[in-house]
């Protein structure tokens, strides 16, 4: 098995995630794309863990998963609150933070 195959796969996932973040208007979908990116990163971790024969990759992957969970929790909480106040979660309308 080539190391590169896993890394390329992770790269593809990562780029699709990036596209998702850019193209999507709905907050939840953006969060999903971010999940995609995180998973790509995890894949890399594990791939390198195997290549270097150390378990650091694993620990990191675990931590990333935990963090991702927390992040989605808070993210959806926010989205919920925004929805309750604005009745919309499309990112284009939410631009009060304009400079």
């Amino acid at each position, binding site marked *: 098995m080539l190391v590169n195959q896993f890394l390329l796969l992770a790269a593809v996932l990562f780029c699709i995630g990036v596209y998702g*973040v*850019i193209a999507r208007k709905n907050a939840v979908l953006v969060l999903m794309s971010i999940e995609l990116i995180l998973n790509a990163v995890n894949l890399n971790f594990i791939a390198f863990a195997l290549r270097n024969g150390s378990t650091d990759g694993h620990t990191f992957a675990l931590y990333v998963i935990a963090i991702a969970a927390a992040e989605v929790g808070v993210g959806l909480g926010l989205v919920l609150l925004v929805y309750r106040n604005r009745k919309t979660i499309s990112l*284009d309308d939410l631009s009060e933070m304009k*400079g």
Partner: protein
Amino acid sequence: MIAASEALNQLSSGWFLDHAYLIPIVPAVCFFIIILFGKRLPMKGSEVGVLSMVASLVLAGGTAMQWIDRVNSASEGQFISPVVHTWNWWQIGGMKFTIGQSIDGLAVIVLVVVAFISTLVQIYSLEYLRGDRRYTHFFAALTLFSAGMLAMVIAEDTILLLLGWEIMGLCSFMLIGHWWEDGANSRAALKAFFTVRTGDMGLLVGISMLYFASNDWTTENLGVSGFSIRGISAWALSGEPNSTVILVVSIALFIAAIGKSGQFPLHTWLPDAMAGPTPVSSLLHSSTMVVAGVFLVSRLYPVFFTGFDILGTGGNFITIIGGITIVIAAALAFVQNDIKKVLAYSTVSQLGYMMLGLGAGAWLPAVFHIFTHAFFKACLFLGAGSISHSASHHSFDMKKDMGGLRKVMPITFTTWIISTLALCGVFPFSGFFSKDEIIDNVGNNGYNTFMIIGLIGAFMTAAYMTRATYLTFFGTARGASAGEHHDEHDAHDAHDSHDSHAAASPHESGLLITVPLMILAVLALSSGFLNATPFGEKWELIKKWVEPSSAVVMETAPGGPGHSAALSLPKAEEGHHESPCGSETPEEGVCYAPQLQHAKFKWSKAAISLGIVFFGMLSSWFVCVALYTKKDKRLVGLTQRNGALRAGYKLLDNKYYLDTLYENVIVKAIAGPIAAGAYWFNNNILDGILHLVARVSRTVSGWVYRNIDQRVVDGTVNNSGRATRGVGGILQPVQSGKVSQYGALLFSAAAVAALVLVIINS
């Protein structure tokens, strides 16, 4: 070639000579006493002022006596070294600034004059200014002025001279502007200070140039710094200085003298300075302060001697200025109605004489003229003050408020007549011995054209003084002196509080005023005999005491009085000592003063000038009588209504009134158009230039301030502020608030960065 010189006597010295530095210190200390405790003293500070002046007078008298002994103790031709004491004032960057006293003949004579006149004026102003609102201030300023003048006179180094000079400028500002409520006085004070200050710029530049030019020579030869006056004088005569530097220095210093002594271009402030109280005019603007310029020239005479090459040429910068001043000032005196203005212009003209004398090498007559002029001019001014004080209710206008006062004010009248005769230079009076001496020596030293100018000046002086005397004392009493009480008060109403007691009609002033008048009149009469050249050598005391001997001084102990080897002086014809100084530089040893000739007194020459003076008086007398008393209609208004129509009629008249027309040609012609012209010139052109310069500098500075400062310099600063805000504006849309847009930007930037990295690394 030094012959066996006679045994050099040890020059006598004394307590007064050694402690002459106390003379300025006493009034300076008293100034602070008056300022601090004046108001609480019984006579409000004036007694401290008078006492300090008396103390200085005593000290000055003592110094004079001891100086005379010192002169007598010296052998024939021995160099009488000045009594010098110096202290180290401060030291900066290898340059030592010393301060100290240097007493020689010139210093002694001027010390005596200044101390004497100041004492008399302070006594006089006790009465004159009684009840004035700022009585204490007045005496404080007077005392400070005397301190400044005395400090300048005894100064051993140019820095102390500059210090005294500036303090006098300050005091004249304070005293002229004494009644500063009225705008005219404060403007006059300001004008005086500006003009003097512009002159001082010359002094400042002159002193620094002198210092740098002479410092190395003086330190190496005499062990004194480049500031000491003795060092500079020796350096000037040592053939060391190159001609351009010393010429520039002399011009710079002479500009300062012109400013201070009111010579031709910068004299406009002196007549306006009459706005000050009369004691101030009599002290400052007649005998002491204005003499400072002449004193500066005589003090640093060697510098001017080599700078303008006085004995070499037929006319130099100083004589030209002196000559012009004599003529135009005298002409202006004709047209004045205010008695103090007449005296002011006459002072300017007499100063012109002194400058002329100095410029033409007549050093001693000029200094002697300072001596005599101080007395009779002070007496004239105080006389004018007494008239205004007791007769014409503080107005000085001869035409409106005076006339016929000779009967009512006998003492003032007699003192006035004596001083006028002295001023005109009539034989027994002091003026003759000094003014004629100047004219005589000027002629003798080869400045013939200027001698003629001097004679014309003498004629005009006699003429305008007679006119002034006639208007005040003869003819019918007019205005205030005729008893009418003026309703409108002129500028000096500030001290009206003490008028309640004086009865409206004119009367002789109180003792406090007449006593100084009498003393001064006696001196005006007798002071001439101190240097009566006509009566032969032994009478010329002042020449013996005051003139700095121009013997060559061999080696000089630094700082101490150098002993001099009396060279065997080639016996020129009687009355002259031909010594190398001045004509050419001595090989070894040092000269402190140039060798000057003295004109042999001849009665024939004296007779001419006396004749001219009498002629001036008579003609002026007749014109006045005709014009003012008989109101001769031909003369009255003659100059006003000349028109082409009447020209023919007048031409016929002339044949019959040849003598009156002749008089008009001589007296009126000289007096009328020239004086009016000069006055017009004086007011419009000179003052005009001054005001123009003020206006131009104001507009230029306004323009500079608005355009360069606000627009260009400030503008760039503000624009840079606006520019940054502009750039901020452009970038603002990027901050759109849309999260996704940020994400897009973020990732596209990352993509680009990655691409760049890859390209670079591969």
